């Protein structure tokens, strides 16, 4: 992948050591290539790549606000169409899970509905990290965050993850996929595949956050891998509404995933709560047919 080319996201950015989003963002832009314009929501990625006067980006990049990257990208795409350059140039809108599933959802929905030729990438680190780990719509059940704290009257976040891929799918767009920073070729293939399709595309990438998840920085990729292997983060791919790809797994117990993360520490006092999380994984495994055994 760009083996000899210099990366399009330069070093010297100010992400935390071991930031999963920093890895994924570089993999995505390298897969997209230099003829790409990126509109970025406010969030860690924006902050750690473009603190004036230094930018880590090697491609044309714009940040406006937290909730409007899909709309800004829509304007860029319209401008390129007006200029007759759309065929030659990719437009990517990207943001964190909060900027995508919560405050940015309406702009994304509008962009989907208009059928604009844009790839939206959601870097899912499962909370508002830039502001200090508050819950988002994609924060998993029972996760301990600063606005869904565990306490004597609480086990953490009370709601399951908002099913963003399904919501994107429901819009009837041609391409929807989940990916993870742990499976690099799969992620980059999906980005290229998406960009080869005309119309709105949505990719949601699971990116561990050592700070917010409270795991050792060297475990970033390992934890992402376990997330997929437990079934808690199904790696799936839809084209024109049909499930065309599923990353098969030999399911591991969710404890393997929860254990190394501080955000789930409180659960190990109450095993029955962990069962509930295992149930979520089991549902996913059935729903998407993740178990390798399911293979024909």
């Amino acid at each position: 992948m760009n083996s000899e080319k210099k990366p399009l996201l330069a070093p010297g950015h100010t992400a935390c050591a071991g930031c999963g989003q920093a890895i994924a963002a570089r993999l995505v832009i390298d897969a997209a290539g230099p003829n790409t314009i990126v509109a970025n929501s406010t969030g860690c990625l924006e902050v750690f790549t473009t603190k004036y006067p230094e930018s880590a980006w090697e491609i044309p990049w714009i940040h406006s606000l937290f909730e409007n990257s899909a709309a800004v990208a829509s304007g860029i795409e319209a401008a390129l169409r007006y200029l007759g350059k759309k065929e030659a140039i990719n437009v990517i809108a990207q943001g964190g899970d909060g900027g995508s599933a919560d405050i940015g959802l309406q702009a994304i929905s509008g962009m989907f509905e208009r059928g604009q030729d844009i790839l939206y990438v959601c870097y899912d680190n499962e909370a508002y990290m830039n502001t200090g780990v508050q819950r988002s719509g994609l924060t998993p059940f029972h996760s301990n965050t600063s606005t869904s704290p565990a306490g004597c009257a609480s086990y953490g976040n009370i709601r399951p993850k908002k099913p963003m891929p399904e919501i994107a799918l429901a819009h009837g767009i041609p391409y929807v996929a989940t990916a993870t920073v742990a499976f690099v070729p799969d992620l980059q293939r999906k980005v290229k595949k998406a960009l080869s399709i005309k119309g709105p595309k949505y990719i949601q990438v699971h990116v561990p956050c050592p700070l917010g998840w409270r795991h050792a920085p060297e475990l970033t990729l390992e934890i992402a891998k376990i997330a997929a292997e437990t079934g808690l983060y199904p790696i799936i791919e839809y084209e024109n509404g049909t499930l065309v790809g599923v990353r098969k797994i030999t399911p591991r117990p969710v404890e393997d995933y929860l254990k190394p993360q501080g955000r789930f520490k409180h659960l190990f006092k109450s095993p029955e709560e962990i069962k509930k999380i295992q149930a979520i994984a089991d549902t996913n495994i059935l729903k998407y047919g993740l178990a390798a055994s399911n293979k024909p």
Partner: protein
Amino acid sequence: MMKEIRIHARAGQGAITTAYLLGYSYFLKGMYPYAFPHFGAARMGAPMNAFVRVDSKPVRLRSQIYQPDYVIIADPTLTRGFNCFSGLKDDGIAVVNQREGFEVPKVKARQKLYVVPATEIAMKAFGKPLGNTALIGAYAAATEEFSLKELIEAIKKRFSGKAQEGNIEAAKQGFDFVLKQKSAK
């Protein structure tokens, strides 16, 4: 009479906790500390400051600290290419965390410098490389601004269980380490 303390650390090294514990120790003496952080859009590892300004009456001055009476440096690598002592009063005192094989810049004649193996102390005391409490212990001994008693009170307020014990132990060792140096002189 007003005293100003500037803490140099990296985001994640607990500079704000350090400022809080310092402030709280003064608070227990009935003084009026104002402790506050300053970060860039800090990420773990990025250099940042925390400040404590303390007086016998409520502190009103809100600016950052440019001429500190005391400087605490949690990570000496911060002195690479950047003068952490800038503005330190001529009779100022600096307490610096030691880092094996790392040269700490010299200070002016009347300034005092204490290099303390705080990380090491912390590792021994509670197995984490968080030297804050050891550094504050050292600070207490070096400046005589407050006693170990107040610091231990503060630590009790902030930490509980094993963390509490460990940090109290670290504070003591930091304190003693400097006492020794002083008496050595």
